[in-house]
């Protein structure tokens, strides 16, 4: 399994990296689960995301800041089909992310399972998310991880 945090150095867009950092030090993830997870940070990968998706992982979780017109801090969970169908309403990265996923699908190279978690940056995309906001997303991802392994 791969958990990839997508981001850039700017404001709310650092979310993906913040979550990966917190997952790395998180103590609630069971060692048995952690063993099966690779954690990765990507900087504005654009179409380069496809290379990551082709890495042979059965399951991929992407983390990214989004702009879906929801209140700041709203947590979103999207499946692969939902991401590639929605080119509007998601963050600028998701234009790269949506394209990368759609392209991987067009070539029959999507991982078995792909899901994206994000927080809506709201109107303040230049403000980085604080620990309370990112903590909520981290908990949700940890929950997903334990479900994935037991399910």
């Amino acid at each position, binding site marked *: 399994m791969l958990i990839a945090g997508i981001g850039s150095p700017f404001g709310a867009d650092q979310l993906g990296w913040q979550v990966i950092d917190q997952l790395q030090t998180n103590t609630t993830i069971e060692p048995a689960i952690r063993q099966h997870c690779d954690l990765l940070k990507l900087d504005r990968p654009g*179409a380069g995301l496809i290379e990551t998706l082709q890495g042979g992982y059965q399951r991929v979780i992407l983390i990214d800041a989004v702009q879906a017109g929801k209140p700041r801090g709203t947590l979103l969970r999207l499946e692969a089909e939902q991401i590639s169908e929605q080119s509007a309403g998601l963050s600028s990265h998701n234009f790269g992310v949506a394209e990368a996923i759609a392209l991987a699908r067009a070539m029959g190279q999507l991982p078995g399972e792909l899901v994206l978690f994000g927080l809506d940056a709201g109107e303040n995309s230049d403000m980085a998310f604080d620990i309370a906001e990112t903590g909520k997303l981290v908990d949700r991802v940890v929950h997903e991880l334990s479900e994935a392994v037991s399910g």
Partner: protein
Amino acid sequence: MDEQRDIRIQVPVLARVEGEGALELLVRDGQIEKLQLRIFEPPRLFEKFLEGHSYSEVPDMVARICGICPVAYQMSAVQAIEQVFGTPDSDWIQSMRRAMYCGEWIQSHALHIHLLAAPDFLGFNNAIEMAQVHPEAVQRGLQLQALGNNLISLFGGRSVHPVGVCVGGFHQAPSIRAVNDLRDELQAALPEAQALIRWTAGLDLPDGQQDFVSVALRHEQEYPMCRGRLVSDAGLDIAIDEYEQHFREYQEPHSTSLYSLLHDNPYLVGPLARLNLNRDRLSLNLQTLIDEIGLQLPSRNVFHSIIARAIETCYAIEEAVRLLDNYQLPSQSAEFIEPKAGTGYGCTEAPRGILWHRYDLGEEGMVLNSRIVPPTSQNQARIEEDLHQSLTAYGLQHTDAELRLRAESVIRNYDPCISCATHFLNIRVERE
């Protein structure tokens, strides 16, 4: 309590990642009365951020300017700083920097050719549609892109913000085993790279002859990447230190990006400009291949840029193989250089064209002032000139949608940093 975050990293520059570019076109009585292109340009903001920082932080900071070409930013920066402190003597350092740069050219060009430009010339709206009919072409592009990334990672240490490059050399030397493995991969990719050149030459490219000045680096022996003098096909031949005496920047009210002129004229930088000025520096193999595909150089058709990128991709693979052959570990991966005050200049060939840096350094090498001129803004005046001529030649009676598509493909020839979004262009056409 909320921690106060450092304001320097809070600048809202998502616009570049959104691919903000806008074109305004006003047509009156069948003539273009107004044409303005707007590009957003984060490198300028970094000029300020760097002030007050140590020279040792500069490579890591400038790498963050661009997600696509961090290596180019690092190379221009260290060249400028080393001009003040002393340039490392070691062949190993110069060769490995060039090899790393090859990785960036391969990665950037492969992505652009396959995912951004080719759909235009094969009649597809985007790479996704193209992949459904030509999956092998897209797969080739992705493989070459991955190869380029691996070559960068060989020296850069990690996938986010490659940290290999430092003033004086590299933080560490890759192992012989890692280098040999990658050298073999590069060698194995050569036939595909040659096939790529033939493939781009076979595309149905519009014929658009224009008059323009090409500007690039030129070196006594090598096809230019990290070193050389600045030359043009209109007689320019200067040291990079003299850039500011010949190139002038100014601001147009409609764009946050500065425009650049050479002796008061627009000019072209990038692969086609490099090829126009340095064809004789390519390997004999490649020169023969250029003749075989019937590409006349110098070329005045900017649509040939896709072929130029393919040629440079192949060159970069050949060159990386040559540089990594018989690799030996160096006695040290970096030379210690004493920091001192002074002004230094760096100019290297990023995938998109010349990237020029100037740093004024104080005692102990602290940055007092910096100036960074990226290739995309240098092309901005040329792009507007091109659009003017191309759209007129194409015919303004076409629909808005057709004009937008033609304008986008013209702009994409220049591979501006906003190309990350395939359809970035908001076009507003007013007809009176």
